[in-house]
C-alpha cells in the first residue's frame, strides 16, 4: 500500500493505493495556517485505522516552503559575498544586509586574490550589530574551489559563535553566481522552519504506528527521504505542479508524448511529458522573483480557468484573466466558461437555470443566440489554451543548444494526448484535443491526481562532476564536495563515469537513499583536451549521472479516445 498526500494552496488531497487501484481517496480544503493538521487529517481519512502495517511508503507534497517564502515568514539572512572581478558590484544589491569582501577564484578554481581576515571580521561584527543570526557566504566560482567560503566560515564561527553560516557551494555547484546567491539565501531562510516541520511529520507518523519510510516530493518530481529533506528545503518548492504532472502521467498511456492541462478556477497549468519523461525546465525555478538553481518541471501558467470572468467588449465576447468569484451557475457574480459548459450540458454540477440566464444576458448584447454565445466562449477558452500549448512546444524547440548533435537531433514533436485534470477539464479537453489533433484523456480520479502523483513519485538523485586532470581535482556540483584525481592525461571517459558513480553512491548514503540506487544512467559525459603549446597537458570532463526518472506505477484506464 502506498500513500500520497498533496497539500496545495486551495485543496489537500490524499490517496491510498496498491499501485493498480485506488483503495481510498479524500479531498478537502487546505487549512492554510495549519498545514500539519491538513496532512494528518487527510492521512487519517484514507487509512481509517485499517492499513497501518501494510503501508510501504508515504509521500507528501507540500506548499510549506512556498508559503514561508511568499509570505516572508522566514528569519532575515545576511549575505557575505566574494564576487571578485567581472560584473559590476552594483549588480549585487539585495534586499538584505550585504557585505562584499575581497577574494576571487577563477573558472578553473585557481585563486586570483585571497580573502582578507580583517575584512571578514569587520563584516561579521557589522552583521551582529545589524541583529542578524543567519549568514549566507557565497563566492563567485565557489563551485570550482570552496576554500574561500570555508575560510570565511571558520573565521566567523570562531569570532561570532552565535551566527549560523550557510555556504553557497553546499547548495548548488551549477554555474551562475547570482542564482547561487539567491538559492543559498532562500535555503538559509527556510532551513529551520522546514526542519521542524519534517520532525513533526516523523513524530506524527510514529504516533500512528506507521513505520514505512516517508518522503517529501521535490519540484523535479523526485522524492527525498523525510530524514534528509531538511538538507534541501528549497527543492521542495513547486512540488504541486510536479505532483499533478506525475498524477496525469500515471493515468495515461506509458511512454507517450502528452500535454497535461490542470484547469483550475483562475489559471490553467500546462506541463509536457515527452516520450514518457516529464520536461524539466532548462533553467532553475523563479521563486517569488528570485531566480534560483532549483530544478523543476517546465510549467506554463495560462491566466484562464473555469471561473475566469467573461465580458463583452465592442459586441464581442472577451475572456478576462481574472476571477471575481465562483461561476454564475454556482452562485457567483459574473458569467464564466463554467456557465457556458453547463449551458451546453458538458458538466454535471451547477444550476442550469442560472447558466441559461448568464448566456442569455451575454447573447442579448452580442447579437447572437445563447447557444452560439456559449459555443463562442468554449471556443475562445480552448483557443487560448491551444495557443499556450503551441508556444510551449515552440519554446522547447527554441531552447539554446551548445552542441552540434543537439541542434541536429531536435525534431518538431507534437503531442499524442492531452490529459486534463481539474474542474472544467471534462468540458474543454475534448475540444482542445480536436484542435491539436490528438487524443483526449480526462481520467477517472483526476480530482486526486496530485495525491496520486505523489504516491507514484520515486527517489531521484543526480551527480554532476567537473574533473580537471591538469589541476588534479574534481568537484561534485550538487553539494560542493570534491577530492583529488591523478594528474594523468591517461584518464578516460570510463574513469570519469566510474568516479561519478562513486560520488553518486556517497551522496545517496548522505541522503539515506542508498537502497533506491538500483540502476543509474549517464546523462552526458564530455571530454575536453587541454592543449598548451601544442601538447596535451590534461583533460577536463563534465559528467552527469542520475537515477532514471520513472514513476512507480501506471493506472492505464483504457479510456483514451479520439473524437
Amino acid at each position, binding site marked *: 500500500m502506498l500513500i500520497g498526500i498533496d497539500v496545495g494552496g486551495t485543496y489537500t488531497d490524499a490517496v491510498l493505493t496498491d499501485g493498480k487501484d485506488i483503495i481510498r481517496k479524500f479531498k478537502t480544503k487546505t487549512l492554510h495556517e495549519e498545514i500539519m493538521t491538513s496532512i494528518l487529517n487527510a492521512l487519517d481519512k484514507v487509512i481509517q485505522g485499517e492499513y497501518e502495517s501494510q503501508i510501504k511508503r508515504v509521500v507528501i507534497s507540500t506548499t510549506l516552503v512556498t508559503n514561508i517564502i511568499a509570505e516572508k515568514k522566514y528569519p532575515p539572512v545576511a549575505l557575505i559575498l566574494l564576487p571578485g*572581478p*567581472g*560584473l*559590476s*558590484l*552594483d549588480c549585487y544589491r539585495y534586499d538584505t544586509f550585504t557585505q562584499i569582501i575581497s577574494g576571487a577564484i*577563477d*573558472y*578553473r578554481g585557481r585563486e*586570483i586574490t585571497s580573502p582578507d581576515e580583517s575584512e571578514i571580521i569587520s563584516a561579521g561584527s557589522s552583521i551582529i550589530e545589524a541583529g542578524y543570526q543567519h549568514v549566507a557566504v557565497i563566492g*563567485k*566560482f565557489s*563551485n*570550482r574551489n570552496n576554500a574561500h567560503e570555508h575560510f570565511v566560515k571558520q573565521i566567523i564561527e570562531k569570532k561570532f559563535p552565535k551566527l549560523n553560516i550557510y555556504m553557497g557551494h553546499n547548495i548548488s555547484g551549477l*554555474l*551562475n*553566481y*547570482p*542564482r547561487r546567491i539567491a538559492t543559498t539565501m532562500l535555503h538559509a531562510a527556510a532551513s529551520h522552519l522546514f526542519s521542524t516541520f519534517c520532525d513533526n511529520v516523523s513524530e506524527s507518523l510514529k504516533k500512528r504506528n506507521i513505520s514505512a519510510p516517508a518522503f517529501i516530493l521535490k519540484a523535479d518530481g523526485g522524492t527525498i527521504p523525510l530524514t534528509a529533506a531538511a538538507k534541501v528545503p528549497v527543492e521542495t518548492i513547486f512540488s504541486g505542479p510536479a505532483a499533478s504532472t506525475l498524477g496525469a502521467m500515471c493515468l495515461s498511456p506509458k511512454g507517450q508524448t502528452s500535454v497535461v492541462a490542470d484547469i483550475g478556477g483562475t489559471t490553467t497549468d500546462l506541463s509536457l511529458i515527452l516520450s514518457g519523461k516529464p520536461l524539466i525546465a532548462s*533553467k532553475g525555478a523563479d521563486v517569488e522573483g528570485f*531566480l534560483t538553481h532549483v530544478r523543476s518541471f517546465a510549467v506554463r501558467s495560462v491566466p484562464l480557468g473555469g471561473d475566469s470572468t467573461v465580458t463583452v467588449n465592442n459586441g464581442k465576447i472577451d475572456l478576462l484573466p481574472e476571477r471575481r468569484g465562483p461561476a454564475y451557475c454556482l452562485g457567483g457574480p459574473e458569467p464564466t466558461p463554467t456557465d457556458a459548459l453547463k449551458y451546453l450540458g458538458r458538466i454535471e454540477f451547477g444550476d442550469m437555470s442560472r447558466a441559461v440566464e448568464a448566456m442569455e444576458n451575454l447573447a442579448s448584447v452580442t447579437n447572437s443566440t445563447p447557444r452560439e454565445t456559449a459555443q463562442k466562449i468554449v471556443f475562445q477558452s480552448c483557443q487560448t489554451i491551444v495557443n499556450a500549448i503551441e508556444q510551449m512546444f515552440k519554446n522547447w524547440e*527554441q*531552447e*539554446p*543548444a*551548445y*552542441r*552540434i*548533435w543537439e*541542434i*541536429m537531433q531536435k525534431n518538431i514533436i507534437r503531442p499524442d494526448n492531452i490529459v486534463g485534470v481539474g474542474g472544467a477539464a471534462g468540458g474543454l479537453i475534448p475540444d482542445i484535443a480536436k484542435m491539436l489533433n490528438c487524443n483526449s484523456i480526462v481520467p477517472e480520479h483526476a480530482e486526486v491526481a496530485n495525491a496520486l502523483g505523489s504516491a507514484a513519485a520515486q527517489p531521484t538523485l543526480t551527480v554532476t562532476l567537473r574533473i580537471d586532470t591538469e589541476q588534479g581535482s574534481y568537484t561534485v556540483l550538487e553539494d560542493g564536495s570534491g577530492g583529488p584525481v591523478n594528474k594523468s592525461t591517461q584518464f578516460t571517459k570510463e574513469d570519469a563515469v566510474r568516479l561519478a558513480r562513486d560520488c553518486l553512491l556517497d551522496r545517496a548514503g548522505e541522503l539515506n537513499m542508498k537502497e533506491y540506487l538500483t540502476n543509474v544512467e549517464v546523462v552526458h559525459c*564530455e571530454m*575536453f*583536451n*587541454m*592543449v598548451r*603549446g*601544442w*601538447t*596535451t597537458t590534461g583533460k*577536463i570532463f563534465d559528467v552527469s549521472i542520475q537515477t532514471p526518472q520513472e514513476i512507480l506505477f501506471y493506472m492505464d484506464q483504457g479510456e483514451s479516445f479520439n473524437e
Partner: protein
Amino acid sequence: MNKSNQTGLIFFPAFDWAISPTHPEREERLLYTRDQIFEEGLMDLPEIKEYKPRLADFRDIARTHFCVPHIKDQVLEAHLIAAGSSLVIADALMAGEIKNGFALVRPPGHHAMKVVHGNRGFCNINNEAIMVDYLRSKYGLRKIAIIDTDVHHGDGTQDIYYHDPNVLFISFHQDGRTLFPGSGFTNETGGPTAFGRTLNIPLPPGTTDEGIHYILDNLILPVLKEFNPELIINSAGQDNHYTDPLANMNFSAQGYARLNEKLKPDIAVLEGGYAIETALPYINTGIILAMAGMDYSNVREPDYDQRMFTLSPDRKAKIEEMVSELLSVWERRDSIDLEVLRAKSEFSQRQKTIYYDTDGIMEHQTEKLKLCPECGGYLSISSQAVHHGLQCKVLCLSVPFHGCHTCKEAAWEKYEMAVNRKTYDYVYFQDRVSDTYKGFSSEKNTAWEE
C-alpha cells in the same frame, strides 16, 4: 526597427567539433568563456536575450561563395550552424526584437574568400559576409560597414567586397610582414569601382589599447560617420590580446569592451582569439556588457596592469602617419574616373595567388570586373587549384546585388558559353538580383541549382 532595449546573444561553442584534437580551433576553445559568462549569470540579465542557433541554407552560402566543387564538400554542420547563428541574430535585429547582437560562435570565417577550395586560417565559409548578403537579399539593405578587429587581416572579407562600393570594409591587424595571412597593407584600397571602401591598418607588433583607440577615434569612427551605413558589423576577433599565443599585440579586455562601446556595432560575430584561458573569458564578458550598455569596469584579467597599455613613441608616430595616409585615401574615394579607365578596357583585371594553409592548396585566380558605369559590373573569376592530386579549373560568374540587365545578360552568356564548350571542370553562376545560384559539372554533364 530597434525598438527593443535588449542585446541578442547566441552562444555556440560547438563543444563537439575540432579541426583536430590539438588544433587551436578545438572543443576547448570556448569552454572557459562558457564558464565565465554562465557564472556571471549574463544569460539571466534583463538586458540580454539568448537565441538558439540554426543551420544556414546552402542558398545562403551560394549567395556569397563559390564552393568548389560543391557546397557540401566545403561545409560541415558546424559551419552551417556558425553561419546560421549569425543569420538568427540578423533576423532578430531586423524584427526589432533586439537593439544589437553578438554571435559568439565558432568556427570562424573571415579568411574565407569568394571562391573556396578549402580551409584557410581555420575558415571555410565567411560568417559575416554570408550574413551581410542575407541582410541585403532579404531586407533590401544597401550600405553596410564591416570593421574587422581580429589581429589577422580579414583577407577573405576584403576579397568578397573588394569591388562593392556599398560595403565599407576596414581591417586593423598586426602588420602582414609579421603574421598570417601576410596581406592587408595600406595600398589595398578596393577595386576601381569601390576605391577607398577597403581600408587596411597594419599595426606594428606590440600596439596597445592606446594605439588601437587612436585609430578608432581618428580614422574608423570619422570614416564611418561619413559613410553613414545602415548597419555596422564587428568582425570580432579577440587575438589582439596581450596573451594571445599566435600573435604579438598588446590589447586588453578593457580595451576591447571600450572599442565596442564606441563602435556601437549592430552585430558582432566572433572571429579568432586563441588565448582561451587568459583572454577569451574576460574579453567576451567585456564585449557582452559593453554591447548591452552595462558597466564593464570590473572586468579584468587576473594579471591586468594598466601600465602595460601605453604606447611607445615610435609606434605612435607610425600609427599617426598611417592614419593620415588612409584619411587622404578616404578623402579621394570618389576621384576615380571610370570613363578614363573604360576608354582603355571594358574590364579591370587582376591575378591572385591564394594559399590555403590548413589544407595545403595553392589557387591561381584571374579576376575580371566589367567596368559598368550603371551597376558596378559583373565579376568573372577563373580559378585553378589542385584538389587531392587532381587539377581543378573553374569559372565563376557573379552579378552584383544591384546588377543591371546588361551585366546580367552578359554574365549569363559567358556561363552558357563555358557550359557548352566544357573548357572548365565546373562553372558557376551567381545572380543576386533574382537570388538564383546555378552550377554545372563538365565531367558529369549535369547542372544544378542551390
